[in-house]
């Protein structure tokens, strides 16, 4: 694995809990919450936009992001296997946008690099970049899920 120092082991119980809740990513432990995958200041800035109807915009944005990110990462993986660079770039572009909006900076940065990928790049380098994307995306999703749970009490 390329990034052993960053890797976390997610236990089966967390996996099962996440699956029961219908989320594509496992719930994070406290140590994972502390990672720098998500810039919480960016998310906290949305507090001032909350409506008075009892809904939670931040939870809503997290839900939208988690659904979207899982699909985009999958699209990027499939497009790289099929060497469909236009599709890969489009999915990376979209994921970059939504990640940037929520302060998921590492994912946004990797997506920016993926936007420049083309047929001249070595397949190994592209695969490594996608592997990094999947890792950072999982980290960010864990943090976001933890925040979501905290907000819902």
């Amino acid at each position, binding site marked *: 694995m390329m990034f052993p120092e960053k890797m976390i082991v997610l236990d089966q119980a967390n996996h099962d809990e996440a699956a029961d809740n219908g989320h594509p990513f496992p719930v994070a432990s406290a140590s994972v919450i502390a990672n720098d995958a998500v810039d919480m200041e960016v998310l906290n800035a*949305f507090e001032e*936009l909350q409506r008075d109807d009892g809904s939670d*915009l931040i939870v*809503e*944005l997290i839900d*939208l*992001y988690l*659904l*979207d990110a899982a699909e985009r990462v999958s699209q990027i993986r499939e497009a790289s296997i099929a060497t469909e660079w236009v599709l890969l770039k*489009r999915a990376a*572009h*979209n994921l*970059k*946008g*939504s990640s*940037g*909006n*929520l302060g998921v900076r590492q994912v946004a940065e990797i997506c920016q690099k993926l936007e420049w990928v083309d047929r001249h790049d070595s397949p190994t380098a592209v695969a490594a970049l996608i592997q990094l994307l999947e890792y950072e995306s999982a980290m960010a999703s864990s943090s976001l899920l933890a925040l979501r749970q905290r907000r819902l009490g």
Partner: protein
Amino acid sequence: MRILIAEDDAVSRRILETFLWKWGYEVTTTVNGEAAWDVMQRPNAPSLAILDIMMPGIDGLELCRRLRRSPSNVPPYIILLTANQGVREIVKGIEAGADDYLTKPYDRDELRVRVQVGARIIELQTKLSERVEQLEVALNHVKQLEGILPICSYCKKIRNDSNNWQHVESYVSDHSQAEFSHGICPSCYESTVKPQLESLRISESSESDFSN
């Protein structure tokens, strides 16, 4: 003021919608260019549109071109959202008919003031359009009073478009914004009114003599 958002990314769309709602705008959201085009074809379509350049199907640039080709008294103010800071994409956007652009990720205050500029331009265009409409109506009245009018040499009635003879006062009132107040000119006073008054006075004086 109503604003259309065309953005395929759900997170960006929700954030943009929330900002605009918070600032007091009425927002319509669409997830692609086709849906946005449909909304803009409806009567009372939004007057300002924020379009993401990169969308599947009809993209922001093509949508912009279509909106500019479709006739409108007050054309929508269009802000393009671009992820690319390159000059070429911005030039392409403006050439396609956009009024302004914002580069993602945008600053919320920058978004707010750019939307305000758009709202000001739309207000000016709307006022201008209303004035033009008023002028066209006035001009139409003026045109209706031009040309040859058949008028009776004796009673001075005018033959109108329905081939009826109409008093000159009512004809002019119907075909312009002029209204008449009635008075007597000095010449008519001397030639018509004064003799009539004189005659009346004589008549009254005779009646008085007769009764005495």
